[in-house]
Structures are given as C-alpha cells and as structure tokens.
C-alpha cells in the first residue's frame, strides 16, 4: 500500500508542478505550486518525518504562498 501511495502522490505532484511551471496565468501557477507543497507534506508524513511535514505545511504551503500572492499583486497580473 505504501508503495502505491508514494507512487501516486509523486505522479500527481509532477503533473501539478509541470502545469504550474508552464501555466500562462501567474495566479494559476501560484495556486498549483501550493498543490506541490501539499503533496510534499503528505510525502513527508509517509516518510516518517513529522517535523519536516509540519515545517513544510506552515512554510512551504502557508507563508510562501502568501508571499507569492502578495508579489503577484504588486507585479501586476499580466500575460
């Protein structure tokens, strides 16, 4: 079961990351990037690293997306 979970989450975050990078709209790619962070949280939990998962949850998916969104607001929604 654990192998299947790891495999499926990896497939999911690779697809999400690829669309985050190639997405035309910046807002979409930021939201998708948060999805990558979310996937990594689950993976860190599966890998028996609760401390890292908690850090990734508050920093990777929490604060850094706020920072990205504020930057997006100032950089202008273009393209």
């Amino acid at each position, binding site marked *: 079961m654990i192998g299947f979970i790891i495999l499926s989450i990896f497939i999911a975050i690779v697809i999400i990351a690829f669309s985050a990078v190639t997405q035309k709209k910046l807002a979409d790619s930021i939201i998708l990037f948060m999805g990558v962070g979310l996937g990594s949280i689950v993976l860190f939990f599966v890998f028996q690293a609760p*401390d890292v998962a*908690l850090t990734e949850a*508050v*920093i990777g998916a929490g*604060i850094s997306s*706020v*920072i990205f969104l*504020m*930057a997006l607001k100032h950089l202008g929604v273009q393209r």
Partner: protein
Amino acid sequence: MNIKHDLPASTASGFALSAIFVLTILNIILQNIPNVTQSAGNQLLKLNETEGVANAVTTVVVYFRGFDTLGEISVLFIASLGIGLMLHKNSECNLKVQSNFMLKTASKLLFPIIMLFGLYVMIYGHLSPGGGFQGGVIVASGVLLLLISDKSFEVPHSLILILETFAGVSYVLIGLIGLFTLDIFLGNFLPNDISQMGMLLSGGIIPIIYIIVGIKVGSEMSMIVQNLIKRSDNV
C-alpha cells in the same frame, strides 16, 4: 492544432537540455543506490538518550547541530531586514477586497486560539513534532489573519524590535555561557536528567533555545508578512 506553433524553439531546446541533464543524474544515482548502515544520525540517536529529550529531531536541530540553527535565524534576521529595507511602507493595508463582518469577527475569535496553538507547538517542541520554527510561523500566520481582516492593524514595531533583539542576543549569550562554564560553545550547562525525559522541564537548555528560536522566527516572519502586505502602491 499544430504543436510546432505552440512550442517555441527555446522551449523545446530547454526541454531537451534539462531532460538530458536530469536523465544523466538519474542514471548515475539509480546505478549506485547507496547502502549506508552506520551514519552519523544513528550515532546521534544513541547519544540522544543522554540528553533527556523525547524528540530526537529537536535535539539534533537545537543542540547537536545548534550552530546551524544560529546561522539560520541569522538568515531570517537579515532577510527580514532586507525586505524591510526594500519595500516602502504604507500605514494601511492595501488589499482592495473589503473584509466583511464574518472575517472580522472570526479572525478576532481565531487569533487567540492560533496564538495559543503556536505557543503550544513552540513550548512542546522537545516532546512532540514541532518546535520553534513551526510555532513561530504559526504565530506569524495569526498576525497575517489580523492584518488581512483589520486594515488599520499594525504590529507594534518597538515590541518586535525588543523581541528579536532579546531572542538573538540571548541565543548567542547562552552559547557563550556554555563556552565559559563547560569550555564548549552552546554546551548544555543546565541539568538534563534522563529520568525527567518526557516532562516539560527536561533537556536542559534545549527547550529554552527552541523557545528563543520561536520568538525570533515569529517576530521576523510577522515583520516579513506585514512589510509585504502594507507595501504602498505608489513608489
């Protein structure tokens, strides 16, 4: 639909280049899957029993590799300083969306709970997952909620200054006290009885340092978030 029109030449070549690069790395790593039986971490796990801290990651972060953490809070400190230097400040939050009654009330209700949770994560860092970094960022996210809901809210700058100075200075001073008492920088000079393991007061200087780290991270992150949110639109 012609795919050649969608793919500019630079994209295709970038794809090919990065694919070749990463495939080479992957090939090398897959051919030599490592099998390390005796790593430094396993030896540290054995040593951990002498420190009397239930969370081994905390011991490693705060004590065995404590100097990295000192460096890390310095990184946060100067990053926050740089962001404060870069961004012009406005007295008002400049989000265009009006916060409604629900958000205002809910954030006032939630803020103490988030603070309490952050403090809990900070203080229990040596017993359960979590610690200074996580707790500090949780506190900062509570501040973020207030900043979004109440446009006139501002983190008191003097308080932040006192907190971050206190935290940074006391971290180095604890290290220096260790240097002068045990001749080891960041040495654990407080009693750390193994029989106390799992209690709130255990592990000597480790929980104290983690709380200090939490204060530092919380204040720096709050300043970063505030600076980003309150940046004025006109230069």
